[in-house]
């Protein structure tokens, strides 16, 4: 054990940090979720509320639908652009992918205002669409407006993953399959899709986790008009209907949903990985 004493020393800062800013708040959130807002007594009422009251159930459903739709759009768009990027010359691809890294560095407020300027009620594109082309205005503040806005993050995020997944696909596997008699569609079904699947699932895990917790841009665009679980938590923690225990219970529900979906995707990915377990 003596050998490790020095290495342990270096773990202290990060342990302290995680303890103070992750584990302590998390513990407080879990503990508070079991207390009554007014009396401070121990209760499970907050959880009962989360699964019985219409507004919470509505937010829960909205969050799941919204995250699912965003992940689907991100996955399809990102896979397509990733495939295109993998076929570009390294130079062009480098430029595209560095542009695609930008959204992740931008503040969610900035993105929201950018979309308002471009696609808001008096946004540039909407004016062009309605005035010159006679097409009805795009409603940025609707659910599909939110999905489109979040695609600004999700498609690049998925593209970055899928481009490297496609680039790492060994061309000789495709040639081997064709040499062994497989037609183009059989090559996709039996070789390309199974080989790419683990990377694809890793990619959608990142997108899905982000979208289940989507918050900043949605708040900036729609205020509280669209009821997402994350926005519900925010409203209970900040505004007139101040109720920290209820916010904590909703947060715990959201954390559990994210953890369960990530574990499920991770389990699927491990089973699909070459030489994976359980096959």
């Amino acid at each position, binding site marked *: 054990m003596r050998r490790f004493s020095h290495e342990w020393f270096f773990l202290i800062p990060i342990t302290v940090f995680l303890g103070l800013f992750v584990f302590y708040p998390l513990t407080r959130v879990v503990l508070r979720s079991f207390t009554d807002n007014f009396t401070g007594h121990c209760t499970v009422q907050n959880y009962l509320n989360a699964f019985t009251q219409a507004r919470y159930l509505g937010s829960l459903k909205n969050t799941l639908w919204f995250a699912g739709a965003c992940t689907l759009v991100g996955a399809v768009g990102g896979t397509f652009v990733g495939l295109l990027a993998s076929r570009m010359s390294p130079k062009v691809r480098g430029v595209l992918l560095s542009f695609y890294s930008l959204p992740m560095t931008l503040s969610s407020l900035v993105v929201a205002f950018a979309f308002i300027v471009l696609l808001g009620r008096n946004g540039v594109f909407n004016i062009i669409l309605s005035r010159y082309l006679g097409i009805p205005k795009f409603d940025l503040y609707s659910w599909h407006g939110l999905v489109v806005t979040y695609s600004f993050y999700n498609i690049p995020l998925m593209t970055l993953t899928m481009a490297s997944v496609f680039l790492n696909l060994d061309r000789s596997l495709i*040639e081997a399959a*064709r*040499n*062994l*008699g*497989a037609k183009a569609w059989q090559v996709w079904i039996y070789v390309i899709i199974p*080989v790419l699947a683990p990377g694809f699932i890793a990619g959608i895990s990142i997108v899905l986790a982000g979208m289940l917790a989507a918050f900043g841009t949605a708040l900036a665009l729609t205020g509280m008009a669209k009821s997402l679980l994350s926005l519900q938590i925010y409203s209970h923690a900040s505004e007139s209907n101040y109720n920290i225990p209820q916010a904590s219970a909703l947060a715990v529900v959201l954390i559990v949903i994210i953890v369960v979906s990530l574990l499920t995707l991770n389990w699927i990915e491990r089973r699909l990985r*070459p*030489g994976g377990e359980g096959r």
Partner: protein
Amino acid sequence: MTSGMASAAVEINEVSKRFGNVVAVAEFSLEVQRGELVTLLGPSGCGKTTTLRIVAGFERPDTGRVFIFGHEVTHVPPERRDVGMVFQNYALFPHMTVFQNVAFPMKIAKRPKREICEKVAEYLALVRLKGLERRYVTQLSGGQKQRVALARALARSPKILLLDEPLSALDAKIRVQLREEIRQLQQKLGITTLYVTHDQEEALSISDHIVVMNEGYIEQVGPPTEIYFRPQTLFVASFVGTMNFFSGVAVDTSEGPKLKWHDSLLAFPSGAEVAPGEEVSLGVRPERLELAFEREAVPQGHNVVPGEVGFVTFLGSIMRVEVKLGDGTEVKIDVPTKERITPERGQRVYLCFSPEDAVVFKNSCVRR
């Protein structure tokens, strides 16, 4: 020539292929007879792999035609050519087990399950991999992977087998062992095989015929012994094995034409047609050169060149001696260690060789 009973197993007819400005294969013609193992040998970039990929259908030739057992396949897609191919990096499907890999071509062809199981077992036994059916290919050694690739390529009994540098990623010992197994398997199955390698020893040891390629062109086609002992071009001579060259001008003497090499006159092998004034080279293999410590010890009729011993390398059964000649060129000689000669650095010696052991290269035909 194109069809009928007597057609060759593979016929490549004036095939050319360019990639941009680079000529990969130029006017390549070759016939491979049934049951033969023919090796395409050459340095990297000589067009050997492109030629193989044209036969497999992964590349379309710009001009020329390809026939397999008399049927033209120039424009047939790879999946309909019925040729087995083994790739340099194995190209095994990483998400499948050994069994699934070998079964893949039969599954695609929708063969009955029982037949697939029997065939997989048969071919895994053939490449000595029985018992590894359920392993994933990521859990195999390089040699095992290449055996799986071989079994997979053979499993649906293709008309011909193509091997693209199949052993280049393996270590020396396994390489030698596996190449012998490939040769035995090929002869046992009697399958016509095209084999691509840059390793001349590999080519010499397993081929019926060798095609030496350079910069897209064929330099020479022939059985291994002919390629080694009777190379037709300087390129073949220097690429296959080691060759020492004595270059000069042919002169007329009372004993017929000889090569004037500095102060020495070197006799040509009998039957060599050399005209006086012609620029020629005499090539001699290291093992055909002999060392003499005195002028008198040189056998009658041998060509003699004086020199000085340079570097001596002990290689076990032979000693490789570098001898520096008067003009500064270095010549390599292999002296069998059983002769118990130990040349010492700086020692004055005479190199000698029988004219019959030399090969004549006319400088005009060295390169196209």
